[in-house]
């Protein structure tokens, strides 16, 4: 096993660069995972929007009803009906929404005509959508009554509106399981692990391949009585051992941080996914190792490839925030499918045939990447041997 031993001696000699990536990963993963707080949708509190209500229609029960209804769901702020003052109020965010009821509103509504209310809002304000919904709801309810109960007086109409709009639906959250607080944190950790795995494997494998592919050493080895199958076996064994060792070191911190969670279905699936990804990353590293010709190129490729695929595949920025075109390009890298599987694993509160099928499909795709790239590498090696 001379070649196998030499493989690790070369790795050991290049350990400095590899350790930098390892330490940076450990520190960043620990920091990011401990400071990362996933959004909590159970902590919703109702916020009332400040609005100004300008009535040009005169006193009517319908307008009063609208004002009371909006007052229950927003803060009515008194602003004089002066263009300059209204603009200032919007600019200084005293109000975010100004509603103006035009003259003839009540009459038009009761006669079933289409009426438009005037609104002025702060640009790009999300709260105006909420106000639109409330106003539309009120007006549509009025329209329903005036259409189907023509001749209804304002007092009765107001009473019906009050009763109808006061009704609220009760929402009950039904869950089939409990979602561990560690799930999302560990997902973040395992997503980030792909970057370090790629960088470390490219550096490690390339540094060895550069040595063994050196023309003089290669010729010297060819003079020896060691069979090429034996030599290749030892090289592959060395590469796989290095990859497994790297994986073990990288996942070790997850056991420290998340403890018994790593033995749950979610934790074990994350581990399996990361192992599958490690094999694919090894295969790609092996191809790169057979292509690069210098140490400078090796470092450049390790950085560009590991960082590049991580950026476009959702390691640093969630996939949900990336553009469709970016994700389409990313889908040609195993990192994308690895991150996708991680996201699905951590998002699931329980596992069933549907979500497991999607998760395992992603894993199979990652594995397929690895097999395909390995095939290309072996063809390349054979081609070079024939040309030599």
């Amino acid at each position, binding site marked *: 096993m001379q070649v196998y031993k030499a493989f690790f*001696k*070369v790795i*050991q000699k290049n350990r400095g660069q590899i350790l930098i990536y390892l330490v940076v990963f450990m520190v960043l993963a620990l920091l990011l995972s401990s400071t990362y707080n996933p959004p909590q949708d159970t902590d919703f509190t109702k916020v009332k929007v400040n609005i100004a209500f300008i009535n040009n229609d005169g006193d009517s029960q319908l307008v009063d009803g609208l004002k009371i209804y909006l007052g229950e769901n927003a803060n009515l702020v008194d602003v004089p009906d002066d263009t300059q003052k209204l603009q200032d109020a919007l600019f200084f965010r005293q109000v975010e929404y100004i509603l103006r009821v035009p003259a003839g509103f009540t009459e038009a509504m009761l006669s079933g005509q289409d009426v438009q209310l005037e609104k002025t809002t702060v640009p790009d304000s999300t709260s105006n959508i909420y106000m639109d919904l409330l106003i539309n709801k009120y007006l549509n309810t009025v329209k329903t009554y005036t259409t189907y109960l023509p001749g209804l007086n304002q007092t009765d109409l107001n009473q019906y509106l009050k009763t109808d709009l006061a009704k609220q639906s009760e929402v009950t959250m039904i869950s089939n399981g409990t979602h561990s607080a560690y799930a999302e944190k560990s997902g973040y950790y395992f997503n980030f692990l792909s970057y370090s795995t790629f960088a470390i494997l490219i550096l490690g494998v390339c540094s060895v391949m550069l040595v063994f592919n050196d023309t003089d050493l290669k*010729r010297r080895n060819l003079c*020896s*009585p*060691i*069979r090429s199958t034996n030599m290749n076996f030892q090289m592959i064994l060395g590469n796989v051992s290095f990859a497994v060792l790297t994986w073990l070191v990288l996942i070790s911190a997850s056991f420290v941080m998340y403890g018994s969670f790593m033995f749950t279905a979610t934790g074990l699936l994350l581990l399996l996914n990361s192992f599958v990804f490690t094999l694919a990353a090894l295969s790609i590293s092996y191809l790169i190792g057979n292509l690069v010709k210098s140490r400078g190129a090796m470092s450049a490729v390790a950085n560009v490839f590991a960082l590049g695929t991580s950026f476009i595949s959702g390691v640093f920025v969630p996939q949900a925030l990336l553009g469709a075109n970016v994700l389409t390009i990313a889908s040609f890298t195993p990192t994308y499918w690895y991150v996708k599987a991680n996201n699905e694993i951590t998002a699931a509160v329980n596992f069933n045939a549907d979500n497991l099928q999607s998760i395992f499909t992603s894993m199979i795709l990652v594995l397929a990447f690895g097999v395909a790239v390995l095939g290309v590498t072996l063809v390349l090696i054979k081609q070079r041997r024939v040309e030599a």
Partner: protein
Amino acid sequence: MVINVKNLVKRYGDLIALDHFNLEVQEGEILGLLGPNGSGKTTAINCILSLLKYDKGTIEIYDQPMSPDAYDIKRNIGVVMQNVAVFNELTVYENIDYFCGLYVSDKQTRKKLVAEAIDFVGLNDFKKFYPKKLSGGLLRRLNIACGIAHRPKLIILDEPTVAVDPQSRNNILEGILELNRQGATIIYTSHYMEEVEQICSRIAIMDKGKIIAMGTNEDLKKMIKSGEHISLELLNPENLDLTEIQALSHIISAELTDHQLVVKSSRGKNNLIAILDHLKDQNIAIGKIYSEPPTLNDVFLEITGKELRD
């Protein structure tokens, strides 16, 4: 017979690197392959080692056809490449152990062989050094140790002394002679004729992919007309008539540069005395006199019409 190469032809496109190359190497000899750069020495060695495919011919080593899969033959061969082929990431000891381990699997035997190889090349004080910390000479010694640690019966050394200082070169040459004394058959390629003359029992001179002359040092020199080179420092050369010197018997050529007269003579007795007598008759005083036997360069020059180190 250790090596038997017949009609070997190797082409690189239109260039013929080996042109019906024939070579026989007998057990226990040191065969020198001498030739200028590009004469085909390394190509021949690479073909013999099955590192290069060839177009035509046969190669047998220990009466077995040589091929990339001839592992039993390779087990008996030690190779020292022209370029130093060692791992920069391994120490001197680890490098020798690695290459020895490709031939010898038993750990205890290997330990003994590696220790002997280190001792042989005199790298005991540098066992834990990495190659990058070694001087050129020490690096060459490491290269040799890696090639001979497994005690091969046949050792092929391809220009092992390139870019080596004179002291290290002498150490290397002494080492090669010692390996031969211990029973190894050696093929030694070089373009340094002095080295080949010093250690080789038989010499093959190559040019343009062919062996143009072969034999012992003495045999080769007998093949040519040149007998000796005589250099004389003349104190009053103005009295000299060069044509009279050239007319003397056995004289091939005579040239006068400043006070230096250089005469090339063919094989014959009393050439120097005849010249001295003639100069005395002409009242030409002599300062210093040198007489040198012909070199392999003269052999090469006479056969090919060009210098060995062109």
